[in-house]
């Protein structure tokens, strides 16, 4: 794209005008029609609110798709049991689109949905690359799209003027910068090895982690950065190299089957004995601990963006406890990353509809709904989950594996939690993430 000034200013103008229009429609209606209780609304369509979920149903990431769909089914039932959105309009998941079909197919489907008008909202998406391809297309089609899982910081930085897209997933900065904050608090860490999957997710995390460490002036050196292939099945060469190097800290954003394989082969190769501490930030929730059984070493910190751990504030937070219990009862397993992210999505949807309806006194259009989901906050396991503009900012939460928990599973869960506020691990609104990370301020005095 040319760095053509007229174009940039046009963009800004468009963005500005869109915001004005959206706000205007909200505020304008609010001015015209005073305050509305939900019972007085008559513009609620008879048919259910129709959602299409876009998730992986095939291929390795299908695991997240499965979790997300479990949570989705459960939450839709829950919401519908209470009459639906604002207690008035039920939700129906009309279709699931398999991300494995590739962006070509996904974008075509968005086009078809936008055109046929039989669907009210698109929701989901696991892959960051897919979110980057599909979100602008949905926006072009003026089709509301609630992005629930991918964390690439580029989504809104590359496409700053999307009025039909909101994302309830925290940016991946939270995990990487959260790890930097953890290192700040650690003593005796001088050498670090990073190991991340060889694609954007892994490289982004590694880059942010490294840049962040440098910015806060941590006295540590990343001695080696490793990038095993996505879906690697044999990490033994990496494991022995890491064990040989004996770093003080091991950092990794591996996820899914990869982190499970890596940890179990690492245990086998004596890696966790050679390494003092580890920070594993790539979706390391209950399913990982379950699949590893008792073999998760104790000198690791697991976690990352969001307090998406069943044992986190389980006793204090009733909503979280209900979510975990209900999920466990229904699926005989604890919720993981995919399930929690989907929950956040439905929270935003409920909140957004309520907000829009309370302002305009009518059922919102797609544009009004997405506008209403901007800048809201709602309950989550880690307290208030806040949207800044269309983008959520999640805090970072880390914990250590422990058998000391009350949940009905016989494998360790996380305990000894460390919580790092969202503001400390996310850039201020409109600040480019990498620039912000490069100038990260130290937290500890």
């Amino acid at each position, binding site marked *: 794209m040319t760095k053509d000034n007229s174009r940039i200013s046009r963009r800004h103008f468009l963005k500005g005008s869109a915001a004005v229009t959206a706000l205007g429609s909200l505020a304008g209606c609010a001015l015209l029609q005073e305050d509305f209780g939900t019972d007085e609304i008559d513009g609620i369509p008879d048919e259910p609110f129709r959602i299409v979920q876009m998730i992986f149903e095939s291929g390795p990431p299908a695991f997240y798709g499965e979790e997300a769909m479990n949570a989705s089914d459960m939450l839709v039932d829950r919401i519908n049991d209470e009459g639906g959105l604002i207690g008035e309009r039920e939700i129906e998941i009309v279709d699931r689109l398999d991300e494995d079909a590739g962006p070509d197919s996904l974008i075509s489907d968005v086009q078809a949905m936008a055109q046929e008008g039989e669907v009210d909202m698109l929701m989901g998406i696991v892959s960051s690359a897919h979110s980057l391809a599909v979100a602008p297309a949905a926006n072009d089609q003026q089709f509301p799209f609630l992005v629930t899982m991918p964390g690439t910081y580029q989504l809104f930085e590359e496409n700053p003027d999307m009025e039909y897209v909101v994302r309830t997933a925290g940016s991946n900065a939270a995990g990487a910068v959260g790890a930097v904050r953890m290192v700040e608090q650690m003593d005796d860490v001088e050498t670090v090895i990073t190991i991340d999957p*060889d694609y954007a997710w892994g490289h982004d995390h590694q880059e942010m982690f490294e840049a962040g460490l440098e910015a806060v002036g941590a006295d540590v050196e990343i001695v080696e950065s490793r990038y095993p292939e996505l879906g690697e099945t044999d990490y033994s060469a990496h494991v022995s190299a890491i064990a040989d190097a004996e770093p003080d800290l091991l950092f990794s954003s591996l996820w899914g089957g990869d982190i499970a394989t890596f940890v179990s082969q690492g245990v086998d190769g004596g890696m966790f004995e050679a390494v003092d501490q580890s920070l594993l930030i790539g979706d390391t929730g209950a399913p990982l601990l379950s699949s590893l059984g008792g073999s998760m070493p104790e000198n690791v910190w697991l976690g990352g963006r969001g307090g998406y751990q069943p044992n986190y504030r389980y006793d204090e937070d009733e909503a979280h406890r209900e979510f975990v219990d209900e999920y466990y009862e229904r699926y005989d397993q604890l919720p993981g990353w995919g399930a929690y992210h989907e929950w956040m999505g439905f929270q935003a949807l409920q909140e957004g509809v309520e907000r829009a309806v309370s302002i305009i006194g009518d059922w919102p259009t797609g544009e009004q709904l997405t506008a209403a989901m901007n800048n809201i906050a709602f309950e989550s396991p880690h307290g208030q989950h806040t949207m800044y503009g269309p983008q959520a900012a999640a805090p970072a939460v880390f914990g250590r594996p422990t058998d000391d928990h009350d949940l009905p599973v016989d494998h360790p869960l996380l305990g000894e939690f460390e919580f790092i506020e969202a503001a400390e691990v996310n850039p201020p609104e409109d600040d480019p993430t990498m620039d912000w990370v490069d100038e990260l301020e130290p937290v500890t005095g």
Partner: protein
Amino acid sequence: MSTRLPTFGDMKAQELKGLLLDKRLLGGGVLFAALALYPGLTMNAYHTRLLAWIMCFAIAALGFNIVLGYTGLLSFGHAAFFGTGMYTVVIAMESAGITDLIVLLVLAMLAAGVVGAVIGALSVKTHEIYFALLTLALAQLLYVLAARDVGGLTRGTDGIGLSRPDFLGIPISEAPAHIYLMGFYYHVILVCLFATIAVLWLVLRSPFGLTLKMIRENETRAEMSGVPILRYRLYSMVLSAMIVGLAGALYAVVVGHVTPEYLDWTMSGEIVFMALLGGIGTFLGPIIGASGFIILQEVALGVTTYWHFTMGLVLFVVVLTLREKGIWGGAKALVDDLNERRDDS
């Protein structure tokens, strides 16, 4: 007797042939007009997009078939050319600031041609499975370069989004997305498809095309007729790469986001799949194959979670029953068969 060689039949054969040719031209013209008018008449953006998608891959499959169907080489590395076409457009637009569609398409074809020449030069000496795996390996190395963002141009696996190109200085990119596609870009693809068909039809019936067939049919004889076969294999790779690169370039704008996945061997596999499904032994088969593949995938995706199974089954059955004839050749054979029966009765 067939009338492939009009100079050998009597004049009637010649006239018949001419008529047949006219009929084909007529059919092509009608089809072109119908396709050209479709978006305007139906105002169906989804169908327009689907057609644009299909036509891009039809061009790719046609280009691929030069190598498999005519020269007899199974390449599993054509994703390299498709991906090069896509990346050339997006990098030229985003980094070099080139926004004219024609310039972009030409650049993409040239770049893909160069990649084709390099991969071809390294691989034309090998045969069959070795050729397939060497092209696969070389293409995969290109994938690694893009996924690893070597040189800092590709931005890794998240890929690069691109804006819409202009046309001959007209700032058409400012039109809304669906108007751009339905009123302009779709037709560019359509023209490119028909131009590709026309050019390939001519080229494959030229002495050059005959030479490729000679190499496919009998390498020893071709060489013993004084044909430098390695050179002609290379030519066919470059020509094929350029056309597949054009397809990639056109497609980049349709999909709007370019990732290294388009350079991966599974992408090569899809192109092979399409060409085979339609029939590599026929000229138009690959087009039918691209349509069949995409429509089948869309339908299977809509109907079942187990769409891999469905696609696998179709591939298996088509390959086993129709082989090089594919759907198109199979259909033609069926029509001939029916005609014969009707003539008999």
